[in-house]
């Protein structure tokens, strides 16, 4: 999908955009209370990158914001599920982390709409038989 370019070339252009965004919606300080936010970790090791994790991460960053969901999207290393990459771990506030495998932008859309918004389980959940996720 071709994105429309904004023609921003200089730091001054960027600062202007920053001011517009700040004026329009105000900047949220997500670092203050991360437990109250949806936490999303995209596995970005070799296996994940080769399977399209970057596109999934970019989609999640942009779409969560567009849909007004307060979330923190971060990257993590290999979770050991190379067969199911790209994998994404999602922690809803007050819930246990849930890992989804074989995520692509289409499936990420379903995860946002059904799991993140409504807490419904969707296909592709990897059972939690692991100890910890590498951060």
């Amino acid at each position: 999908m071709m994105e429309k370019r904004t023609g921003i070339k200089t730091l001054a252009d960027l600062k202007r955009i920053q001011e517009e965004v700040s004026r329009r919606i105000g900047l949220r300080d997500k670092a203050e209370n991360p437990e109250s936010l949806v936490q999303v970790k995209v596995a970005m090791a070799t296996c994940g990158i080769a399977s399209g994790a970057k596109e999934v991460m970019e989609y999640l960053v942009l779409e969560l914001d567009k849909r007004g969901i307060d979330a923190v999207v971060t990257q993590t290393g290999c979770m050991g599920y190379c067969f199911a990459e790209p994998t994404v771990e999602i922690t809803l506030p007050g819930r246990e982390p849930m890992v989804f495998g074989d995520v692509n932008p289409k499936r990420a859309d379903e995860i946002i709409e059904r799991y993140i918004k409504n807490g419904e389980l969707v296909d592709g959940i990897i059972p939690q038989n692991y100890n910890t996720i590498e951060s």
Partner: protein
Amino acid sequence: MVTLAMHMIDIVQNALRAQANMITITLDERGDESLLLFQVEDDGSGMSPEILERLSDPFFTTRTTRRVGLGIPFLKMTCEQTGGTLRVSSAEGEGTTVEALYRTDNPDCLPLGDLEGSLLLMVMANPGIRFRFTYRVGPEVFSFDSDALREQGIDLQHPQLVVPVKDYIRENLEALWRHRATVNYLC
């Protein structure tokens, strides 16, 4: 790995895992020699000589989640298939430098890929880390320093700044590429 941008994310992930605080990425096109130097330098925990020696062995890894470590072997493969070389230097407690040299006149040379999007995602996902990115084409340079932008009041963690910052990097890279003196297989 089908683009250099993918290698960049992969090698940076290694630096993040080594608990680096500053990651410096350099791409240096040397048109007169038909070479591209791709370098990632970090101030992380570094590696012992024993680990360094086994780095290009795909069946060696320090991870516990799987038994293969393919990032460096893939990078070695893609640069060597163009006639280039890979060099990794590291000192425990000081950091690591990965240098891949590609021959850009070889049709097997990887395309650059989405450098700006990849860089920005890493910056967004790791707010505590300073990313310095430099792209050189001969004497012409474009530099991006995440801390310098933050000091200018640019919130690199805000999703609505993703597209503008990507465009800012892309526009400057494209301006830089117009200074290429010779045709190459990077795009």
